[in-house]
């Protein structure tokens, strides 16, 4: 699907005045255009190194509506392929995860290898039944290899891919949003990396539009009221509320990039220790120790914290409590498949990991006592927006309009107070830029779009 004309886009998204047409959440033609204009050009989260630890391990993932295979070849390279046989489209790999030397299609038996001892380019066609008699030398095995994603990057264990060979580098895509992602992925003691994904990915279907999920996590403190029932019950790791006490957070958004968080401004000293997981004395003692280590490790370096965030377009994360990654895969204008991955410090004691896991599961996911209420709201916000009359009425994003101020120390970032929809305005402005078919020099004016993308090693 081609881009949408700039004139049409202006009728759909008016970020300056804080209104967005309901059509972009329910219209099939707009959804089809999103797959091409947004998902086929964006850096998308496809998995984590921990899901494919050994050579020839694979994990079946998705990018937009396309099924992909995330795999590590015999040489250790991390690769992403379209999970569809080049002959007749059969889904090549129908297992969620596993280990395979080659991918062989169940339909007509074509097989593909990633091993550089056997092929020049990973994904090449190596096995074709009746090759000699049926094709002679007319079948070019290189031409009919698996579609391979040209850009794949590993960032502190997380794996990201982009189908557009002209795309900017992943780090340019992130910009200074990187610091908030770091807070989720770095060790709690402040050292770089060090987190791991707990085995098992929660996957579930919800009848909503993917952007409703993205905009919720980009910094919507306003919806806190919807979680009063779980706050009353007190599932937090300290025994009250739904989290341990937090310092004040602000909506901080990256105006040119479409990302945003609820988080703190950069600061260069660690605030006083606050009890963490006080209901579990052994775990609390660990976090107290980790706090001291963080004070030592970071010294007076700048650091940030956040609770939630969204990296454009569909990767959302909780950095602190819980600590988790949520990918919103588009299925149709009014359906998504949510994938939740849960993070812990890899070298934390088992008791710390156990307490975290139990807490995560009672907070997030389809059984999470916080998330279940979100899922209800996301479903019916879209369900009641499909009618002809509803579509005439825009959604309102005017909270804290005109209150954005630059954030010292974060390039291109603005903060707009705690209760704000500036980040949502930023998100939809970015969405409109992609949907109108802007090229990379227009989309990334501050970066060198021709810069070579770092391939995963």
């Amino acid at each position, binding site marked *: 699907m081609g881009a949408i004309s700039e004139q049409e886009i202006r009728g759909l998204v008016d970020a300056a005045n804080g209104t967005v047409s309901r059509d972009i959440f329910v219209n099939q033609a707009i959804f089809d255009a999103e797959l091409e204009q947004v998902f086929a050009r964006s850096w998308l989260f496809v998995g984590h190194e921990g899901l494919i630890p050994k050579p020839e391990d694979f994990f079946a993932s998705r990018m937009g509506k396309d099924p992909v295979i995330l795999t590590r070849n015999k040489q250790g390279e991390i690769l992403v392929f379209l999970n569809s046989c080049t002959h007749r489209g059969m889904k090549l790999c129908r297992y*969620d995860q596993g280990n395979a030397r080659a991918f062989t299609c169940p339909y007509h038996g074509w097989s593909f290898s990633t091993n550089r001892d056997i092929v020049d380019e990973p994904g090449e066609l190596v096995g074709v039944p009746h090759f000699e008699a049926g094709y002679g030398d007319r079948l070019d095995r290189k031409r009919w290899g698996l579609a391979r994603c040209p850009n794949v990057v590993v960032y502190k264990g997380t794996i990201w891919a982009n189908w557009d060979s002209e795309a900017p580098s992943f780090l340019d895509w992130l910009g200074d949003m990187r610091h908030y992602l770091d807070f989720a992925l770095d060790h709690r003691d402040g050292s770089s990396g060090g987190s791991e994904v707990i085995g*098992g990915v929660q996957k579930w279907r919800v*009848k909503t539009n993917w952007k409703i999920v993205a905009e919720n996590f980009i910094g919507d403190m306003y919806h806190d009221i919807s979680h009063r029932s779980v706050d009353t*019950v007190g599932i937090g790791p300290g025994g009250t509320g739904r989290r341990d006490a937090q310092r004040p957070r602000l909506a901080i958004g990256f105006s040119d990039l479409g990302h945003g968080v609820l988080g703190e401004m950069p600061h260069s000293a660690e605030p006083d220790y606050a009890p963490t997981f006080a209901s579990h004395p052994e775990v609390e003692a660990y976090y107290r120790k980790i706090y001291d280590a963080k004070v030592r490790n970071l010294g007076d370096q700048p650091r940030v914290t956040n609770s939630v965030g969204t990296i454009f377009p569909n990767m959302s994360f909780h950095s602190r409590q819980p600590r988790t990654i949520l990918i919103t895969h588009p299925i149709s204008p009014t359906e998504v498949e949510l994938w939740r991955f849960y993070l812990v410090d890899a070298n934390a004691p088992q008791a710390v990991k156990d307490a975290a896991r139990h807490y995560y599961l*009672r907070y997030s996911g*389809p*059984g999470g006592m916080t998330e279940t*209420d979100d899922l209800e709201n996301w479903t*019916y916000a879209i369900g009641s927006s499909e009618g002809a009359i509803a579509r005439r009425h825009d959604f309102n994003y005017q909270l804290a309009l005109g209150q954005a101020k630059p954030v010292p120390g974060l390039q291109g970032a603005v903060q707009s107070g705690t209760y704000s929809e500036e980040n949502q305005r930023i998100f939809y402005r970015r969405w409109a830029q992609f949907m109108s078919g802007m090229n990379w020099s227009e989309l990334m004016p501050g970066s060198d779009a021709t810069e070579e993308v770092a391939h995963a090693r």
Partner: protein
Amino acid sequence: MLADQQAAMERLLLHREIEEFMSTEAELLDSRRFDDWLTLLAPDIRYWMPMMRNVHSTNAKDEFTNEQAETNWMDEGLETLTQRVRQLATGIHWAEEPVSRTTHMVSNVRLLDVRNGTPREVDTSCRFLVYRNRQQDEADTFIGKRLDTLRHAPEGWVIARREIRLDQNVLLAKNLTTFF
């Protein structure tokens, strides 16, 4: 011969007693008597619901996510189950407000192991079908197997352990606000 018949009769009665217990539990859940349902749970109950992966037939050991080590749909004890019941009672738990309609069916009840110690414990397996109807047109059907350990406490049977094996890979319901 008489002893054999006596043993068979005792087992039959136990089987019937367990089925009766499961039917009563289903009745409590479907009539939303959740506080009464909590009294059927042992203080040390383990209530967990693994996820199912699509794996190769020769790799069946990886089909279920692991208990107490990996992410599951649910993995909790009495404290969290009690919190869930309290959340339902707040009147502002929007996922179940207005309330859903549920029907719990239990069948194929088998006694896997009977331990006549103190207290007496019975390992059971059964099939469940839970139907949830919500608002105007939301309908979810949860079908699977349940492995329960029931304990005979002074006040009657209680659930000491429950493993819920839902026959789904991608969960096709938007949430799990129903007990199984």
